[in-house]
């Protein structure tokens, strides 16, 4: 079995498990490509309350070195929940480039 980054490549019969057993994570799937709009954090406004982190269905909010919210654009699908729920409106949704 080979891996190409997060992707798994089966080359011979024995690579393939007998049933459909997972061998890797969905991180192979960069769902950032789903985005029409991207959340942008205004770190100055962010009060590190963790609410955006709590509500992100895609685990795409991380903590930066200063404890502020940071978006993982590789996976963020651009749903807008974080922006909608941020109590201080520190997150804005902006259009992806067309």
């Amino acid at each position, binding site marked *: 079995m080979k891996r190409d980054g997060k992707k798994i490549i*089966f080359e011979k*019969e024995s690579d*393939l*498990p*007998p*049933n*459909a*057993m*997972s*061998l890797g994570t969905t991180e192979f799937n960069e769902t950032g490509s789903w985005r029409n709009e991207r959340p942008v954090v205004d770190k100055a406004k962010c009060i590190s309350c963790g609410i955006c982190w709590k509500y992100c269905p895609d685990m795409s909010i991380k903590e930066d070195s200063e404890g502020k919210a940071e978006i993982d654009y590789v996976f963020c699908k651009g749903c807008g929940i974080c922006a909608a729920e941020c109590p201080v409106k520190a997150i804005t949704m902006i259009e992806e480039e067309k």
Partner: protein
Amino acid sequence: MSEQKVIMGNHALSYGAVTSRVQVIAAYPITPQTQVVELLSEMCADGTLDAEFIKVESEHSAMAASIGASAAGARAFTATSAQGLALMHEMLHWAVGARLPIVMGNINRSMAPPWTIWSEQTDSLSQRDTGWLQIYASSNQEVYDSVLIAYKVAENEKVSLPVMIILDAFFLSHTSENVTLIDQKDADRYLKPYNPKYRLDIKDPHTFGGLTGPDWYMELRYKIQKAMEDSIDVIKDAQKEFKEMFGREYGLVEPYRCEDADTILVTMATAASTSKQVIDELRDKGEKVGLLRIRFFRPFPYDEVRKYLKNSKKVIVLDRNLSPGAGGIVFQEVKSALYNEPVKPKIYGYIAGLGGRDITVNTIGKLFDDAKNSEPADIKWMEVKI
């Protein structure tokens, strides 16, 4: 120390499960299977067997629970019949796709409607495409022994597929006869605890059965077919070891006086047993007849079927089942197996014994008579009253 008992086929299944130290049982009652479950309930209640018994609300759930338990890494057992088996159908496919070595007893009973509780093999044969190994037994000793053999085969890493052990309703399930039970210590040497390579393991978490696109589904099916093919040798080995340890011999098929036979009867289960008497009688009259009992119907024993039949002149297939719009199922598969042989016997297919109609020495005698004086047809009926 082995012990002699007089037990019914259903209890032979229960004792087989006990001797195999099954860990989880999930079953639902249905005539003519109930005694399997009742005896196991008692043995779990009084501590003879240390197993979890889930008294499920349907057969569909019986199979689902067995699947869950087996996926978690436990040895799982269940038993059913006809309507129950049919209700499990989706889950029979599931056990195969998930590659789980569950062992199940099925008591052959004809399908409703109309309501019936009597013997016929359409119920299990119409599951032949699900990917379960299928053993058709013809004595209670064989039933009991087959449970151990079944686990040994099913749990072999090369196989990892479920096995169905099949008994004719009443003719076997409710008939008590001499059975030698295996001493637990010996059994434990034959059948080791189940210790699968992959299971639902909290220390090594994996997901099983996730969405699989056209990219890999076919290859997973290929592996199932491969496992079926590989199981032939695994079965042979398991049965050889069984013979060495316990003295009783089983094959994929059971040939009986086939050596120089011109005409060979092919059938399964108790009808095959009764047939032996007919073969003996005809042989006494100087007729060159033999019997090939199919014991494993899945994997279909292509090589054995060809080996024993290809030199005969006539083959008679007795089907206690019907695929409406086609005919007898064993008939079909035997013809298919011999198709590409250079020289081929004529093959005659008869439907008999549906819905519990008794297959007597007389019935079987008539097959030989008819095949002597007629040409094969797509379907022939034996002893239809109208």
